[in-house]
């Protein structure tokens, strides 16, 4: 075979017909649509349904950004960071501080200025969260690899310390925030009103998802992460220092949590030092539903949780928290390892 033919074969492979393709599991994705569809008759009005659905999807996107790092870290290194919430809070506070310094930009009615300010805030939050994440891994997590009990305790301790340090730096009382001017208000689709900021959040979430999927599926780095989640030993036997990879993923996960924290605090119109602990529960539910270690599962889980929270918040406000637990229980009874179980060593 000539070299040209060979290289073609390398990149495209033989005729598509003869290859067993992996059956992509669409069912969990369909669940999102099913949930939305189920809610529609219960809610009654289409416009309210649209508002709630967008709100739910937006919330889901932000939760996904926050939780994605956590699930990858667990899948790759079997480490569960119970203190992940501290990066969320940190990101929120850093973001808020940055935004507070830019009143001209956030107060301007020009959309691009608002977005630029937000992007700057998110970048700063990412950077600080990444740095703290690196420290966290080095000082707290590294010494307790493989010891789950100690991991749980130490990362909780890390969260307590982090929360207190936030109080030291920014004060113990919650801070409130006004949305940047151009992102306030709603966009109307006929009867339905959709908040501008939620659309923005969805957009950012989609970008992050796209970037993650691209990295994971099309780059060698992503390949390493996916392979490492499956069989850490083999990846090391192939000559890759998976420890460095893990630190990288941990730091990236912390950065993402920081970014998500900024978005979340803008979403909630404020931040408090305890917000990390509060969001923690939610993201744990999300990654359990999605399957520990699966990015796509995390995404679907986050959307489901976001939708559920908004629908029940409207329909049965008293049962809001329970609805997520019920969702988790239901998913686990159907697939005990989560929506997209990760085939593990």
């Amino acid at each position, binding site marked *: 075979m000539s070299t040209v033919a060979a290289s073609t074969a390398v990149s495209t492979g033989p005729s598509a017909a003869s290859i067993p393709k992996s059956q992509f599991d669409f069912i969990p994705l369909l669940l999102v649509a099913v949930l939305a569809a189920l809610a529609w008759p219960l809610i009654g009005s289409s416009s309210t349904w649209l508002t709630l659905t967008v709100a739910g999807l937006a919330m889901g996107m932000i939760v996904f950004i926050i939780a994605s790092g956590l699930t990858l870290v*667990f899948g790759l290194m079997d480490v*569960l960071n*119970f203190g992940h919430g501290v990066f969320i809070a940190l990101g929120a506070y850093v973001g808020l501080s940055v935004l507070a310094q830019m009143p001209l930009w956030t107060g301007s009615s020009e959309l691009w200025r608002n977005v630029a300010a937000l992007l700057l805030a998110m970048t700063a939050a990412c950077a600080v969260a990444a740095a703290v994440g690196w420290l966290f891994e080095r000082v*707290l997590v590294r*010494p307790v690899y493989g010891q*789950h*009990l*100690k991991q*749980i*305790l*130490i990362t*909780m*301790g*890390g969260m*307590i*310390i982090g929360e*207190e*340090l936030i*109080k*030291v*730096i920014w004060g*113990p009382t919650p801070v409130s925030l006004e949305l940047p001017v151009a992102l306030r208000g709603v966009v109307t689709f006929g009867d339905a009103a959709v908040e501008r900021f939620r659309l923005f959040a969805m957009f950012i979430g989609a970008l992050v998802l796209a970037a993650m999927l691209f990295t994971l599926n099309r780059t060698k780095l992503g390949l390493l992460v996916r392979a490492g989640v499956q069989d850490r030993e083999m990846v090391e036997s192939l000559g890759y220092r998976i420890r460095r990879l893990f630190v990288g993923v941990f730091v990236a996960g912390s950065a993402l949590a920081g970014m998500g924290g900024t978005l979340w605090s803008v979403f909630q119109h404020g931040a408090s030092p305890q917000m990390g*602990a509060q969001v*923690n*529960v939610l993201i*744990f*539910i999300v990654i*359990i539903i999605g399957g*520990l270690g699966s990015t796509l599962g995390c995404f679907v889980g986050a959307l489901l949780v976001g939708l559920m929270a908004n629908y029940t918040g409207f329909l049965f406000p*008293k049962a*809001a*928290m*329970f609805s*997520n*637990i019920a969702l*988790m229980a239901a998913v686990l009874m159907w697939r*005990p390892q989560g929506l997209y179980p990760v085939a593990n060593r």
Partner: protein
Amino acid sequence: MLNRLLSHDLPRSRWLALLLIAIVLGLALTPFIFPGTKALNVAAKMMVFIVLVASFDLLLGYTGIVSFAHTMFFGIGAYGVAIACTQMGPTWPAVGVGIAAALAASLALSTLIGLFSLRVKAIFFAMITLAVASAFLSLASQLSDLTGGEDGLNFKVPEALRPSTMYLDAPFLGAAFDGRLLTFYLLFIATLLLVLLMLRIVNSPFGRVLLAIRENDFRAEAIGYRTVVYRTLSNVLSALFATLAGCLLALWLRYNGPDTSLSFEIMLDVLLIVVIGGMGTIYGAVVGSVLFVLAQSYLQDVMKLSAGVFEGVPVLSQLTSPDRWMLWLGILFVLAVYHFPAGVVGRLRAMKNRV
């Protein structure tokens, strides 16, 4: 005789023994030695925490299970008594019903949690209990007709325990003999009995199997012990003791609300105490709770003194501010997990060899 009372689980350290004796005597004689309502409240809180933390030690220290749902059972006990006294009036039968109902609820819940979640990995279990506890907290706030919502329930206790009930007209040795004193000693006796009971349990064959499971559950299963059964039992027992602690709390405070018994802060406090005190010792819970509640109640005053030193210095004054004592506790906790896995008790026992 002392040996049998302590179920052959002696302190094994001169210092620890002295400390324990001091604690028991101190608590028993608080009304006489430390005058004032604050001291009495602090002592009562210590006793409640001793039972609560010891019950958590049964789960974490002896069985190796991390559960964040522990305060849920604490809350069930407290609410049980509170709701019963509110709905049925402040009588002894009401208290009895409240305690019985709370125990039954805890039994059911802990069995359910045990069976459902213990089939999964430890991490899963920890996360699920966290979620369940949060749900329960919000439930308690939501069902305001029953639980008084965010404001909680203020209620009267049976006449014998009320502060207004005087048994002796004049104070005896500095303490007023009223219903409050009686309640205090009720707590004291209960705490003593419950701790001794827990010592009996962990030193029984059942307790040894728990330790074996904690060390190596595969081996335990291979030898023939059905670990799921033992773990569930441990869950249930620990929940029941926590529930009783909650009942005691409610009787003392004559009030219960979501923050008093269900808050995540309390869960964290319990976790911190158990680790710093010494996991798997029961005595660690005793010593740790006393130190913690003491610090929580009085350290802030002490810190106020030293905060004056750093007055005005931007970050340092905040770091040493009495409100930030949790920061130092958190650091101590992390250090304890790394360097003193056996906690204060372990340290004291290790010292014995050198003393």
